[in-house]
């Protein structure tokens, strides 16, 4: 189960000595089902997490594969759309599919998830239409999905801010009496997503303090993708990020973030703890950002391509595909079917993006406040008159001569 061979974990002895929980190996073998490894794994993550992994059916595993494959296909299409000038920016999730799909699938329908700006697979799992994610990057809106219906809060672009929102939301859950009742449909956990870079933010540390103080039902899901744009995680963390949890007074565990089974099982157990009123957990999903930070980034300036190649051997989809083929008799037809579904989703997404309406200028004045505000209304009136003036012989617009 422990792996000390991650290429990016060699920066310090503290990092390389940390146990990283793995259940599905890069070769596609299940360690948690190996009698010789179970005791060691159980000591690391508890019997509950192992039971959750063991309960996964072939259909569940195929469902995970499908989610990851669709997310990757959406990601590829979004990158292409950005390159073609249809999106202003795209933050690729390539390589992080297992961490996102595993954790999101661990959440119950009533749970609330607070993403960063890269949780596209989390959104997909929760039923968010990918077009509603891309509309943010096209500049049409701030993300068009319904947070209440999907349980996914809006993307947050200030690094780490959302961990406090998640903690506060969890404090509200406590006040609603929605923890520790034993009612599986009522007890609620909150998942707070953030990255290795965010782990340096004061807000993240304050979220840890508040969550620990109030024993709030939060699972902190840190996707350590090794790179905060150009700065490697070992330059920001002298100890494994998961180990920081101990200093705040709650459990922390590092899982192989490219292992969807471990990510699911460990987050599921942590969410169960949260729902039972046993407080927060930090799960560090040790993964890798295979692509650039965003489409505006050039990782060739700061990291060697050999590192990327090493991580390619740990690909989260390839290992689950190998496992499904070898142990569950899933064949070419099924994988082709999933690929076809992905292509259809990508085509639909492309059509939706190209067909997105342009926001009307009136929209910028909407919802600045929940109740009418005199300054907003005055500027709206002025702007409407100004625009009307342009249309009726005001200053030339779009290069046309004044009428």
């Amino acid at each position, binding site marked *: 189960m422990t792996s000390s061979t991650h290429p990016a974990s060699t920066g310090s002895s503290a990092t390389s000595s940390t146990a990283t929980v793995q259940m599905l190996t890069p070769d596609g073998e299940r360690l948690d089902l190996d009698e010789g490894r179970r005791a060691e794994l159980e000591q690391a993550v508890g019997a509950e997490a192992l039971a959750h992994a063991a309960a996964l059916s072939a259909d569940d595993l195929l469902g995970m594969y499908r989610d990851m494959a669709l997310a990757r296909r959406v990601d590829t299409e979004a990158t292409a759309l950005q390159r073609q000038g249809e999106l202003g920016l795209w933050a690729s999730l390539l390589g992080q599919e297992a961490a996102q799909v595993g954790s999101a699938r661990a959440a119950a329908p009533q749970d609330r998830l607070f993403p960063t700006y890269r949780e596209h697979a989390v959104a997909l799992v929760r039923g968010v239409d990918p077009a509603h994610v891309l509309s943010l990057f096209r500049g049409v*809106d701030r993300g068009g999905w319904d947070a209440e219906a999907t349980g996914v809060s809006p993307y947050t672009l200030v690094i780490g801010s959302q961990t*406090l929102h998640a903690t*506060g939301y969890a404090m509200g859950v406590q006040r609603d009496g929605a923890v520790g009742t034993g009612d599986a449909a009522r007890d609620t956990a909150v998942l707070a997503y953030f990255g290795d870079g965010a782990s340096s933010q004061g807000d993240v540390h304050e979220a840890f303090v508040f969550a620990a103080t109030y024993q709030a039902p939060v699972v902190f899901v840190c996707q350590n993708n090794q790179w905060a744009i150009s700065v490697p995680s070992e330059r920001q963390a002298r100890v494994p990020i998961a180990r920081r949890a101990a200093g705040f007074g709650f459990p922390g565990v590092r899982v192989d973030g490219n292992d969807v089974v471990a990510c699911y099982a460990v987050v599921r157990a942590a969410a169960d703890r949260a729902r039972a009123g046993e407080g927060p957990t930090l799960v560090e999903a040790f993964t890798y950002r295979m692509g650039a930070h965003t489409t505006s980034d050039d990782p060739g300036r700061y990291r060697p391509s050999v590192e990327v190649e090493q991580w390619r051997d740990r690909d989260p989809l390839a290992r689950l595909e190998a496992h499904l083929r070898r142990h569950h008799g899933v064949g070419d037809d099924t994988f082709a079917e999933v690929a076809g579904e992905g292509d259809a989703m990508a085509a639909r997404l492309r059509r939706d993006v190209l067909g997105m309406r342009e926001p009307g200028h009136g929209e910028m004045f*909407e*919802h600045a406040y*929940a109740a009418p505000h*005199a300054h907003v209304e005055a500027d709206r009136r002025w702007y409407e008159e100004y625009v009307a003036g342009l249309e009726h012989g005001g200053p030339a617009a779009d290069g046309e001569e004044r009428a």
Partner: protein
Amino acid sequence: MTDDVHGTPGEGGTTQRVTLSRAINLGLRAAMEKEPKVLVMGEDVGALGGVFRVTEGLAKDFGDDRVLDTPLAESGIVGTAVGLALRGYRPVCEMQFDGFVFPAFDQITTQLAKMTHRTRGAASMPVVVRIPFGGGIGAVEHHSESPETYFAHTTGLRVVSPSNPVDAYWMIQQAVESPDPVVFLEPKRHYWDKAELDTAATPYPLHRSRVVRPGTDVTVVAYGPTVPMALRAADVAAGEGRSLEVVDLRSLTPLDLGPVEESVRRTGRLVVAHEAPTFLGLGAEVAARVAETCFFSLEAPVLRVGGLAVPYPVSRLEEEYLPDADRLLDAVDRVLDT
């Protein structure tokens, strides 16, 4: 303080003489009794009752679930309040002192202020951030700041400041009822000012300014701690045969300049007073707007009286720094001499 600044008297209401601190306490208590989703959170707001005793007794009466002694982390206080609001709660956050709001600045300006817009109205943010502000109490550094411009400049926030106990009682309740985040600035040097409070009176609207002393010669605009100062200046001026009309802004955003413009059209002269530095202070905005709307009524340039372009000084110099009645009357002389 004259009685006409207070709410319309109600019938059969209980009238009591209260300090400004106590008035906010009573207002919070009323808000919490009315709406179970209202929470009070901050540093030392529980057993201690806050360093200015504004939350005294609330933890005892409403319990730890509704009155939260938080960890000492201002960003954490406001950030978790945002999350609580997303879950349907109405948190009232206390920043212990004005100078300590800045660790929460990001959560206030980039999260709290923008969440409603970001969610296209799906999530409202009924959060109040209470800040004791202003100088004059002989404090050490960071305990006498006037940070209102930072917040008034951020769309998505509402910013108000009561100048007297009666307004404080009503305005805190109105702030709690607002569906938008409200930065509530409490003039800390006046926490122990007393006034007769009739809790059955009809409150004045939150975002309306009002004439608190009628006059004919010069219009004086003030808010928070400069209102009592302006009223003292008006008394002095009256003794010298000069009639000052004092307008209490009460709301810094939205601004309600109707009463100011009506006044300036009569007096032709305007002085704006606040403790915050004059550069880019509220006075600059008031002056610009009045210049636009009352240009042909003005008999003199609009003058501002405020803090100086220096860091807030050591306490033994603060009375030199702070605008006082003398400085206000000096400005009055100048607009009258024009």
